[in-house]
Structures are given as C-alpha cells and as structure tokens.
C-alpha cells in the first residue's frame, strides 16, 4: 500500500530471528522486560482488532527507535505498521483524523519531547473533539513513547510531561512502571474509546520484572484510573510513578532498616488521578512524600498535595514533602544531571523528615 521497500527485509530477517529467540527465552523464565511487555501488548491487541494500527517515525523497517515495535511490520505489514516522515504535527493530526472514523491508531513519538511539535493535535484536536462535538466524534487514539529524564541528552531531550498532559481535560494520562503495568495499561489504553497519552520511560525499557501467568494472558488488562499499592506500610505514604516507583521502593527498603514502614503507591494513572487510594493511605499513615521527575511547580506532586489537604487535612501529622526534579532545564554534565533528578536518598531523607527523624 505504501510502497515500502521489501527488499531489505530478507537480509534483516536473520538478525531479527536471533532477537526473537532471546525474547522467547526471557518470557519462559517468567521475567519480562518492559520493552517486551509493550511489544507483546501491541502485538496481541493488533492481532485481536484490525482497526488498530501503529504509525510514527522508524516504527516499521527500523523496528522502532527503541525497538518497541520490533517484529510488527513483518507480522502485520506496511499497511498497519507504517513509517511516517519526520512531521510530528502532520502525523499526529493524521492519527486523530483516522480515529474520528473509528480506527484505533497508536501513534509513537520517538520521544515525548517531540510531541511538543504536535501538542496542538493532542490537546486541541484529540482531547477536545468529543466535548466540542457533544459526543458525536470520539477519538480512540493512543499517543505513546518514552518520556522523562533520559541520560546525558541535555535539556531538550530530557523532561517529564506527565503534569502537562495531566492538566488537560479530555485526555487520559498513563505512566507505567513495571512490565505488568506496561502490558496491562497499554492494552487498556488501546481499548479505551478516548485519547490516551501513554508515557513510557526510556531507562526502564531494558529492565526485567517478574510477571505472573495472569499478566501474560492475552486478556490481561488494567483499569485506568486505579493506582497500585506496591508495598504496604504504616508510617509514611510515598506516591510515585514511572521510574520513581523503583526509587521509592528502594527508599522503602532503606527506611525499613531504620524502623520506618513506608507505603509505596504506584500511581499508574496521572489523569484521572486515583485520589481515593492516595487519601485512604494518607489517612492510615498520616504522612506523605510525593516523588516525581518533573518540575515542582504545578506538578503531579502539587496536585496530590492539594487533594490531600482538601480531603484529609486533619489526618496529617507532618507537612507534606514534595520531591521533584530541580526547577531548571536539564543540564548535560553528569554530576549536574544527577543533582537535577530525584535520587533514592532524597526520598529517604524526605520520609525521615516527615517522621521527625534526624537525617
């Protein structure tokens, strides 16, 4: 259909077969990388529903800039996995227009930093159409790609957009952490009738997580708008999403050794935010630390603080601690970059402060 070159496929297929071999090995061991989780979720959904297609830069022949779409071109052909020119505004809008007619596009941004070139279509075309048309035109589209701080790529390629998209009505914003999240939330996003911004994390793609048989089932799907308590505790609540969940869990381990029992909430969905789970936890622990990579002002943590102050003010035993990225564009130098992004020890110290322990 698109006249995409088929000649190179044969030479590339040997390499691909080797890659596939390693993938099937990893899933046999009941561990799965986030990359494979995303890939398998896409694959299963595409095989179940022919209206689903993947578009974006390098998603086809190159197998995805981060190999999330690996093997899909071979399986579904260039009509359903197609490479676009480097035109974010153009192809994001094309995806929206296709969704107007009930197709289900999955639009990959090579990174969400490039989604800034297409933000008009995400906010103004996708998120608002159902409302402006009074429910006549729904937009079942997924915008996905890596988001957040990467490593050593400087200010323009290293930023978290969760709070930005999270402030826009009409969008659903998902932030997976583990392989279970990645599979369950991506399937939920694709099946959802509304526009979903799906924020992955480049540094998590290669990480492996244990997965249960239930997670590996092709019917597995998580609920949008529901947070997960990753670790139960009674002294302090730590909310986090995406890569920060890993940091929060590490912090909780350190805190446990010092006699502080931390409850870690993996938000999973930024919008709609699961205020109920957060508030119920805070009412139990009476202390709150929020962790995110994004900027502090008007951030996800700020929203959680507001929610807890509104709904659970009298349960708080200590001021809320907000851990966020430094309020500066991301520096390039390794030492400065480390300072600009929240670290495990930042969360540990904040949790101790809320428990009035010396840090």
């Amino acid at each position, binding site marked *: *259909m*698109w*006249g*995409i070159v088929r*000649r*190179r496929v044969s030479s590339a297929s040997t390499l691909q077969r080797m890659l596939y071999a390693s993938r099937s090995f990893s899933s046999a061991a009941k561990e799965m990388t986030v990359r494979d989780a995303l890939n398998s979720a896409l694959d299963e959904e595409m095989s179940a529903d022919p209206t689903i*297609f993947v578009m974006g830069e390098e998603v086809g022949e190159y197998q995805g800039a981060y190999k999330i779409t690996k093997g899909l071109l071979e399986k579904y052909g260039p*009509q*359903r996995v197609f490479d*676009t*020119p480097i*035109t974010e*505004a*153009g*192809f*994001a*809008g*094309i995806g*929206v*227009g*296709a*969704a*107007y*007619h*009930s*197709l289900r*596009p999955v639009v990959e941004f090579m990174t969400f930093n490039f989604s800034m070139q297409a933000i*008009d*279509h995400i906010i*103004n*075309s996708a998120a608002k*159409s*159902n*409302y*402006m*048309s*009074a*429910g*006549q*035109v*729904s*937009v*079942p589209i997924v915008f996905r790609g890596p988001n957040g701080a990467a490593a050593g790529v400087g200010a323009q390629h290293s930023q978290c957009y969760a709070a930005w998209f999270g402030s826009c*009505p*009409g969008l*659903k914003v998902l932030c997976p952490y583990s392989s279970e999240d990645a599979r369950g939330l991506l399937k939920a996003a694709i099946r*959802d*009738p*509304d526009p979903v911004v799906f924020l992955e994390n480049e540094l998590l793609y290669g990480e492996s997580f244990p997965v249960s048989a239930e997670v590996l089932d092709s019917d597995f799907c998580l609920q*949008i*708008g*529901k947070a997960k308590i990753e670790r139960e505790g009674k002294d302090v609540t730590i909310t986090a999403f995406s890569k920060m969940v890993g940091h929060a869990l590490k912090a909780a381990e350190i805190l446990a050794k010092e006699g502080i029992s931390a409850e870690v909430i993996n938000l999973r*969905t930024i919008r*709609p*935010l*699961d*205020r*109920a789970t957060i*508030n119920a936890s805070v009412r139990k622990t009476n202390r709150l630390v929020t962790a995110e990579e994004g900027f502090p002002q008007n951030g996800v943590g700020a929203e959680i603080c507001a929610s807890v102050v509104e*709904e659970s003010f009298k349960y708080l035993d200590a001021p809320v601690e907000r851990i966020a990225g430094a309020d500066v564009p991301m520096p390039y130098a390794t030492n400065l970059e480390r300072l600009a992004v929240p670290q495990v020890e930042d969360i540990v110290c904040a949790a101790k402060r809320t428990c009035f322990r010396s840090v």
Partner: protein
Amino acid sequence: MATTAFTATKSIQPLSAVNTRSHDQPLFDPRKTTFLGSTRKLRLPDSAKLNQTSLQRRSAVVAVSDVVQEKKLKSTSNLLITKEEGLVLYEDMILGRAFEDMCAQMYYRGKMFGFVHLYNGQEAVSTGFIKLLKKEDSVVSTYRDHVHALSKGVPARQVMSELFGRTTGCCRGQGGSMHMFSKEHNVLGGFAFIGEGIPVATGAAFSSKYRREVLKEADCDHVTLAFFGDGTCNNGQFFECLNMAALWKLPIVFVVENNLWAIGMSHLRATSDPQIYKKGPAFGMPGIHVDGMDVLKVREVAKEAVERARRGEGPTLVECETYRFRGHSLADPDELRDPAEKAHYAARDPITALKRSMIESKLASEPELKAIEKKIDELIEDAVEFADESPYPARSQLLENVFADPKGFGIGPDGRYRCEDPKFTEGTAHV
C-alpha cells in the same frame, strides 16, 4: 503596482509538466529511478486529457493584479449543467449568503458571541465542491465553517442554534461558531487554528484507504475535502500533509480558499510565490487554479478532483481565488483592504453571476430564482425563531461528553466510578 504575480495563465499543472521540462533538468525523475530504494512508482496523470481541460479553462483566471489592470475577463459558457443542478447550486449559495447575513444581524443583537467569521463572497467554493459529495464523504473546515456545514446538509436550524449556544445546536451548544461537527453529515469539525484541520482531514482520508485496503470494505471510496485559506499555505502542516497525502495516494482534495487576505495580511505580502496551486506539482500531485467566484468553474474542477480521489488516484491541490465581502470576523474593522479591490470583487459576486448566467442561458426564469430566495428567507427566519425558542443547555451538561467513556472521570472515594455517584455533577464546578 508593478507586480507580475498572478498574470500568467494558470490552469491544471499536470505532473508531467514538472517532469518533462527540457530546459531545466529535474533533479530526480520518478519514472526512471527508485527513490531511496523504493519500488513505488509515481503514477502520472493523463497529461493529454489534463492539457485539454487546461485549454478550455484558459480564461478562468482572475488575479489580484486585475484590480489594477482592470482587465475584464469573459466567462466561458461551455460549462454545462442541467436546470435541476443549477437550481440546487443557486439555492445552496443563497442559503449560505442569507444565513451569514442573518448571523451578522444576530451577532450585533447579542444573540451570538465570541468570534464569528462570515463566508460572504466565497459561496461558489463551498457550493461548487460540497454539493458534489456523497453523504459518506467528509468535510474538514476552518473557523469559517457555517456555510460548509450547511452545504453538507446540516440543517440551518441546527447551525443557528449552535451559534445561539442552545441545546438544539448541532453540538448542543458545546462547539460554537468555529467548531461545527456533525457525525451524521460527516462534517468533521471546524478547526480554529491555522493549519490544524489539514492533518485531521488527511487522517480522515487515510481511514477511507485503510477501510478499503486493510479492512477489505471494498465499497469504501469516501473522499475528504480539506478547506483552508491562503494564510494557511505558509504553515508547515500544509506542506507536511501535501507530502504524506501524495506519498500514500490518499483520497483527499486540498481546497485553498484564497481570499487574498489573512486578516490584514495581504497574501502577496506574506508568500514568496503567491501562486499556491504550483505547490501541488512540487509534491507530485496536480495543482489547479480556478476562479473561485464562478461556481460552475469551481464545480468542473471539483468534479475531476473528487473523482480522481475516488478512483484512488490520489490527492489534488485546488486553489480557488475568491474574496470575502466582509471583514475577517465580525470583530475586524477591515481597514486595510483597498476599496477599489473590494469593489472589483463585489462586482464579481458569485451569486449574481450564476443568476445572470442561468437566466441568459434560459436555464431558469427570474420568478423561479425569486421563489428560491423567498423560500430561503423563510427557512432562515424559521431557523432564528427555532434557535431563539430553544432551551439553553442544562447545568448538568457542563460535565458531559468530556470522554466517550463515562468512566473517564475516574474512581470516587467509595471505590466506584465517579460518574456513578448521584452527586457527581456537583463536583467542584458550580453547576
């Protein structure tokens, strides 16, 4: 004014014109080489046929410079229509004009608000194109979208009510002047930002192709029209989508309503090469210039472009040179346009021209056309009455339709979806 812009004869520019220049060797000839190893063949339109049409339409040229040169162009009379077709066109143009005139009145009476952009003067474009479409074909418009919606068949009552912000509007009062949607009529929205509608229209065209080729819906030959103005043609999304539409041979027609002015910015002052239609061949699609003040000429070009898209031969860029008789919006004092220019185009009113042509060619009598005008007047009066008597949206409507999925509002404190809570609509908003 010494500009030579627009003085050349402009007509269909077949692809072959780009590829067969003898004096100027093209950098890349798609017929001889494969592009980046692609086996895709550019399909060249039948140049003989197109050239023939171009001869017929040689006089279809009107230009900005004509204002200065006072060059009178005689319209060709070989554009055949039946009486019924002529009456449909006339009625649709009268509807567009009368509707917009009424909008101006209602705006000044405070019945509608915000930005209201009127279409007066450009009716030949909307009518010439949209009246050729099937119901399943889609139209994507701009902020100047009332008349496109009307031409596509959205009832005047619904459009007027939408402008009044009433619950009987085509978007229940949630869209407004610049955001007309009708799922039933495949009006996929007015888009309020420059260039924003073009990718969406390209995506709608993409979905037709996807349905036919991937979902095997063999009868899906739906075409999408993207309407936009001359100002948009300097926006990147225009170029991005010309490229992709041609690359993937999408069933779309890019209709430029070149009314020569982007608010107060003259097209000639904003664009390095003001002949927009020339940008089509640069992307491998035909570019056509047509007199947008002549509905019959627009219709003839539109017919070929729409059929070409329907046949699966890909997109066409059509530049309709037209003029808006009012300011950019009702809030625009319109002080920058030369009165002589306005007078020139006012004298070329597309409705008067069609009327004259139909009477001269004995397709219709004066009383027949008068009867149509009367019928439309009544229809507009009825639309205003209907809108005025319609209820305002209920308070509870504020929170409706944010998502297609009512569960989109998330989970309430009791663990149930917020929307299931009877107190849901109370929220934090004052409703």
